[in-house]
């Protein structure tokens, strides 16, 4: 074909061939594109180099090792104002991941609920869910975050309202206090087990690091027991299926499974001596327990409810995309409606739901950067906020910030795409 449209020229190479001949044209274009790129970036760089301040201050990441000098309220790992900016950024990154993870979980729950309920036969529930979806999808998430933040700061009682003999507010069930600074919840801790704190010493006494390690070890034990239960239940189910295949009757496993789930875990917790540390009003604030700050709550709740609306639409679209014939065929086989959903429709719908779900998770992660609007100390708040402000190293901080999100997004999408490929329809 090439020979027909571009007959070889006997008189060899001429300059006009660079534009007219298909064989050379692509090189010409690429060369032009490359030069244009060079010129453009060169222009940007030369502007930067000519900037008098940047010229003298240079680009230097050394500031990351300097003491940060500021305090952070939510510290998943130990930190003081004398720790380095790098450590502060690290805390920020962990906080980003914490809120992203929490929001992904709850958004999925909200989304699946709303998506399935919107398809329900129940007219009023369907309309209510449609209202939820449309309302949250069409209003910016930043507004939702700020609304929830403002309302929780203004509507909930101050800690001082819990004070006195006849307080205006009292903790829920005496253990959880919802204040306008955040939710103070009871914190579980262990009195037995590895390196545990004795019963009579308050949990915040003793060497913090050792206690931290001990507590992690204990939680690992709990987790291991949980995993063992899970495996055991799966074993029982597999055995039941085998029996069903052999005899045609499925033995009842309900009570066995219930026991396998709960008995070991309850025993473990009893042996480890689980206690709850209840927050108490001391001084200005509640002390002890877990504090979920206002900023975390606002960000978490707003992101989940907002993204939940999008996920609901994905779920609905996924279920609707399964052709009616599948449902009818399943019904013709005599499956009950619940089993039609769980055995026939959902497995197929999942394949359609998962790719958009991944991009919603990525959206959540990226939207956690809105934390800066409510002062939640995520990476944008530490590295892109206070560190940037205090050191004035804008270029370096923004570069690192973008690199983090970029790497994180690429990793998640790679992992999720791998998973997606594994559930995709195998065509042979």
């Amino acid at each position, binding site marked *: 074909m090439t020979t027909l449209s571009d007959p070889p020229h006997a008189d060899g190479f001429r300059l006009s061939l660079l534009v007219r001949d298909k064989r050379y044209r692509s090189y010409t274009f690429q060369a032009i594109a490359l030069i244009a790129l*060079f010129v453009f970036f*060169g222009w940007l*760089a030369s502007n930067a180099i000519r900037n008098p*301040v940047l010229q*003298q201050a240079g680009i230097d990441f050394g500031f990351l090792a300097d003491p940060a000098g500021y305090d952070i309220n939510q510290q998943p790992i130990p930190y003081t104002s004398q720790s380095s900016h790098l450590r502060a950024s690290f805390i920020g990154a962990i906080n980003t991941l914490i809120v992203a993870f929490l929001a992904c979980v709850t958004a999925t729950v909200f989304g699946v609920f709303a998506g399935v309920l919107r398809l329900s036969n129940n007219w009023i529930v369907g309309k209510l869910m449609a209202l939820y979806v449309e309302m949250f999808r069409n209003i910016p998430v930043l507004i939702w975050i700020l609304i929830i933040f403002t309302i929780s700061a203004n509507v909930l009682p101050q800690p001082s309202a819990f004070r006195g003999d006849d307080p205006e507010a009292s903790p829920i069930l005496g253990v959880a206090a919802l204040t306008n600074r955040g939710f103070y919840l009871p914190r579980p801790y262990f009195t037995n087990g590895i390196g545990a704190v004795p019963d009579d010493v308050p949990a915040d006494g003793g060497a913090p690091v050792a206690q931290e390690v001990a507590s992690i070890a204990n939680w690992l034990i709990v987790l291991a027991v949980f995993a063992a239960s899970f495996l055991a239940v799966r074993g029982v189910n597999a055995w039941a299926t085998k029996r069903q295949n052999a005899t045609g009757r499925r033995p009842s496993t309900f009570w066995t499974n219930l026991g396998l789930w709960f008995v070991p875990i309850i025993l473990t917790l009893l042996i480890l001596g689980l206690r709850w540390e209840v927050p108490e009003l001391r001084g200005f604030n509640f002390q002890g327990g877990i504090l979920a700050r206002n900023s975390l709550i606002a960000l978490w709740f707003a992101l989940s409810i907002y993204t939940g609306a999008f996920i609901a639409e994905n779920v609905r679209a996924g279920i609707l995309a399964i052709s009616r014939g599948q449902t009818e065929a399943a019904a013709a086989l005599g499956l009950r409606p619940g089993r039609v959903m769980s055995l026939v429709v959902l497995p197929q719908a999942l394949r359609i739901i998962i790719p958009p779900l991944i991009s919603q998770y990525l959206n959540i992660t990226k939207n956690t950067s809105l934390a800066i609007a409510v002062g939640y100390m995520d990476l944008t708040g530490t590295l892109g906020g206070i560190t940037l402000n*205090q050191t004035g190293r804008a270029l370096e901080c923004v570069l690192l910030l973008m690199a983090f999100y970029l790497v994180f997004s690429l990793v998640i999408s790679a992992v999720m795409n791998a998973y997606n490929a594994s559930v995709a329809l195998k065509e042979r």
Partner: protein
Amino acid sequence: MKKSVLLGTVAAAGFAAAGASAATLDDVQDRGSLNCGVNTGVPGFAAPDANGEWQGFDVAICRAVAAAVLGDPNAVNFISTTGKTRFTALASGEVDLLARNTTWTFSRDTDLKFDFVAINYYDGQGFIVPTALGVSSAEELDGATICIQTGTTTELNLADYFRVNNMSYEPVPIENEAEARTQFLAGACDVYTTDRSALASVRVTYPSPDDYKLLPEVISKEPLGPLVRHGDSEWGDIVRWTYFALVAAEQYGVTQDNVAEMATEAGDNPEVNRLLGTEGELGAMIGLESSWAENAIAAVGNYGEIFSRNIGEESAVGLERGLNALYTEGGLQYAPPFR
């Protein structure tokens, strides 16, 4: 790889061209207006009034410089900056002058490559608390929840203060004055901390100012002043001496009302004569007209007038002169001789 090669080649070209970095004075005169970075809104220091005109103590510095350089105190573009954007705005050339109650610190002066030209307000960090909290000293604040503006020196001072006094606190970082207000008034923090001048200025805007009080402790030195880019000393000199002209004017009794009269002919005081251009050629030495100081004073008044109009005891903010009185009256404001 592409980019690094490119950066290298362009870098060489760039450094060759860099010697010719433009002088700020020429830029301002060509443009016909001064780009001045100010706060987003602290009553008394820099805030737009009901007509959208910027007013305040810091704003007056901008207007004085514009009057000195361009002869027109209204030839100013006010660019509001936050704690985060202020330094980039100055470094990138978006503003020529930053008059945004910025604390003069070692690292800002050296590492960030700025020049603080003067101190127009000697301040210190303080705390404001609701009276109902029953706190009378900052040392009783162990365990308190404290609202701080991020990106300011107050954040670092606070961390130091609590560390030194072996107390703990719960920081609530906030972006700007408006947010601090909503959080603090809603009781989402027990204490709000920032420069005492700003605390006094916001307290009067609270619904019931008497329900709030400033704690006596001053936990830091906060010398606030205008700053310019490092490396353009001519421009720095202009801003510095415009400011000193305002201070000197107060010392020698030159006011907004009498400056025109005093500048018409040389008077008894040679320093005033030199200041107002009736004697000597001080204006030419910094590349301005001889009436530069006269223009600045005529535009905004002398330092004392600026102070009392915007933040002094007669104004809504109601700050005492204190450290900011002239040195002759026991304060720290002092202008080097004009000669």
